[in-house]
């Protein structure tokens, strides 16, 4: 079977993603009075991120139209695959250790 190319951006469940310009990024950080490392994260290897071509260090704006508020804006900071590992492994460790103490 030949592989069909599907543009996931066309899917109605995929919200609108845009890369912020440097100017907009600074504005955002200023508005919330934070540094970039306080933002929610998204992986560089995330399918949508790959398609829109965002790179490590970019900030992505996500506009969801299916939220209870009607329209909601979210921002995420793009990180590399290497930064992810630690986050996940730490979590796994914790859960495994805590489970048996419960009950």
């Amino acid at each position, binding site marked *: 079977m030949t592989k069909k190319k599907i543009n996931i951006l066309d899917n109605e469940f995929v919200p609108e993603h845009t890369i912020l310009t440097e100017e907009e990024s600074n504005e955002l950080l200023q508005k*919330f009075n934070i540094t970039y490392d306080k*933002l*929610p*994260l998204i992986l560089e290897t995330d399918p949508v991120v790959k398609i829109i071509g965002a790179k490590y260090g970019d900030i992505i704006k996500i506009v969801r139209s299916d*939220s209870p*508020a*009607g329209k909601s804006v979210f921002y995420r900071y793009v*990180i590399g695959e290497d930064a992810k590992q*630690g986050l996940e492994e730490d979590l796994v460790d914790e859960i495994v250790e805590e489970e048996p103490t419960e009950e």
Partner: protein
Amino acid sequence: MFKVPKVIDKIQFGILSPEDVRKMSVLRVITADTYDDDGYPIEKGLMDQRLGVIDPGLKCKTCGQKFGDCPGHFGHIELARPVIHVGHAKDVHKILKSVCRDCGKLKLDASQREHFQEQLSKATDRLKSKELVVKEAMDKAAKAVCPWCGSDKRTIKFEKPYTFYEEWGEERNKLTPIDVRERLEKIPVEDYELIGVNKDVSKPEWMVLTVLPVPPVTVRPSITLESSVRSEDDLTHKLVDIIRINQRLRENIDAGAPQLIVEDLWELLQYHVTTYFNNSTSGVPPARHRSGRILKTISQRLSGKEGRFRSNLSGKRVDFSARTVVSPDPYISINEVGVPDFVASELTVPERVTAYNLEEMKKIVRNGPNKHPGANYVIRNDGRRKKITDTTKDDVAEELDVGFIVERQLRDGDIVLFNRQPSLHRLSIMAHEVRVMPYKTFRLNLCVCPPYNADFDGDEMNLHLPQTEEARSEAGIIMKVQENIISPRYGEPVIGGMQDYISGAYLMTRDGSEFSAEEVEESFYESDILKSKVDVDAFKDRSKSWTGKELFEVLLPKDLSVEFRSKTCRKCEKCEFDNCKFDNYVVIKEGKLLKGVIDGAAFKARSSCKLLDKIVKDYGSDEGREFLDCVTKLIISVIMKVGLTTGIDDVDIPEEGLERIDEILENAHKKVMENIEAYNRGELEKQPGQTLEDTLENRIMAELAKARDNAGGVAEQYLGMKRHAVIMAKTGAKGNMLDLTQMAACLGQMTVRGKRLHRGYQDRSLPHFKRGDRSAKARGFVSASYRKGLSPTEFFFHSMGGREGLVDTAVRTAQSGYMQRRLINALQDLKVEKDRSVRDNSNNIIQFEYGEDGVDPSRSSYGQAVDIDWIVHKTLAMRKS
């Protein structure tokens, strides 16, 4: 006020060095015994008097302080041979793997080192943590051959819990703790950073113990039993073992005993030290007491539900609290709690004497501790505390002056916190006003049961008495029951009518219910609304009779206008609104109940009720409380006059109806058999995506469900509003029509895991049936009603279905409890900031706008920011008038 003795500026964690251990030690413990035959502590033993005092009256030999003041002092044990600290074994293994066995350097070349050091310097906690850089560096080093001295690669194997081997080719060599320590010692300080060791406070070789600290006796006090036999703490027992083995090991080494014996003893020492730290280490048999009880050692003291953290630090036992059984009292306000006089005279509030309350305080003190609104203690201006007794009370009262503090007993009107476990949401603790009462239970208004999830089958609740003026007023303003009528979770009332209040309201306000002037007068009097709400002139005409609607509207705000469908609404195809011929459309205009019957839809707790929430939201919580207090009392009075009862005749159905039900069931049985025969003949058509068996099962299930519904429908036709059980079901007071049809007509299909019952015996559910019988009766269809009674097989099937329900609820509560705990731990620090973003304690953003829409659910109306319909309705009403 309270003086802070010491302020903690920071906490630094590190590993204790042998020097530190010796420095903080007041004595080297060498004797394994505790007390001699005279019961005197042995010098240099584990109970040496220099280690602190545990007997009242004695003085500490180190610091000279008394029992209670002396914090205790550490001793130490010099280990004859080093042992691995189990808590660090994993880290030791990681380090051993990544350093060179000969030169001790981390097996990374200069450029690699530089790379990782740079990464470390810019590592931030969230995007790339230091731990992660260290892990990467060590993983890389573990795979490498030493770039510095090029010594051959050997793998280090770690055998839990504390044994290390070195392997190369076919050969294998055990590393003793001495070897391990030597290797760790060789690691240069420059490498510490890259193996995750803070060079200011730790050295890797300290993970191998050469000296063991002996905790003060205050940490492991021995207890004297009644028979004056001393019983030592578990830790002391363990330390005795360690010292004894240590001693034997040393003697054997000194005597030049064979290698084998020394190694055995060494291993034994390692075992004892390991279990001393953690007696539930996997792979190590737990150390036991002589009686066979497993010893509780250091780790067990700290971890788990009964550990120091969860049981002593996160949760504590407190003073100024009380706990007893709760029972109902419909005649107190929802804001109140009935407190037994017994409890009230034990709990005290400190109250400062001023020029304004001096006389009052004197009176209270004169009552003494045994007459109710009395006082138990007085704190004089010089800070001395004096107990008030019956003999001293008059003298103390005389002496009382401005500035004194009187610890007076709890009295009516005091604000207390009331709580029922499990405290799942914030409404599980609310502030109540005290009402001191006789007998020994806490009394609770029935409307407040839903938020606490309380009933009166033996539930106990806790009461806490805030001790400062600030705390009391804060509790009164934000935690008062009346401030919590509307749930902060979804903006609908959680406090409101239930059960009899609902059916009572229906009985009172339905068309045709009338009350004589005497009855009304009595009811109003009983419910304390005679004075405040009703004009006495209304009773001048003694012959006038009142309708129930007139009774009810007395309690409504004078300018309230609402319209809604009542719970009893039959959902006709075309709604006639205010012309509803069943009186099910409620019309309230300017405080007058013009049409409609009041039931669950108006003021039932935990339902989107249409009347109570309007009163609370538009007229305030005071009005809401008053409405609830009055309406409940009024309804109780009325329901006692009208009467409400239910019995088995409420589900009786005339012969003709029973015949119709039987016929429906009979037909269903036939259809089921037809399906089975079709299946047996192979004529059954397969449903897409299902096996033939599934198709058959689904068809039968559908057929039987339809039959049950139809039978229920027939029963419902006979179950009219004259039957009180039906009133309860239809008004939303208790139960529903399905329950009633199960009682009157047919129970329906019993299931386990969503399937008809089929397990138990080979190819059949019970030996009463043939193997492979797929008929309705053989697979758990109960065609009887509760009224008729179940046959033995039906009864058994019914209990099978019932058992699944029980197991499910048990499992569900356990699982959701654990999930809730995890969620609370994960979310407890999140906070909505001024800019409405949600952030955690390190200022990371979780949501940019709270809940994505910035709506505070506690001020919302059923989750929506504004109730447009209601605003439009009110505006229109305003324009009309």
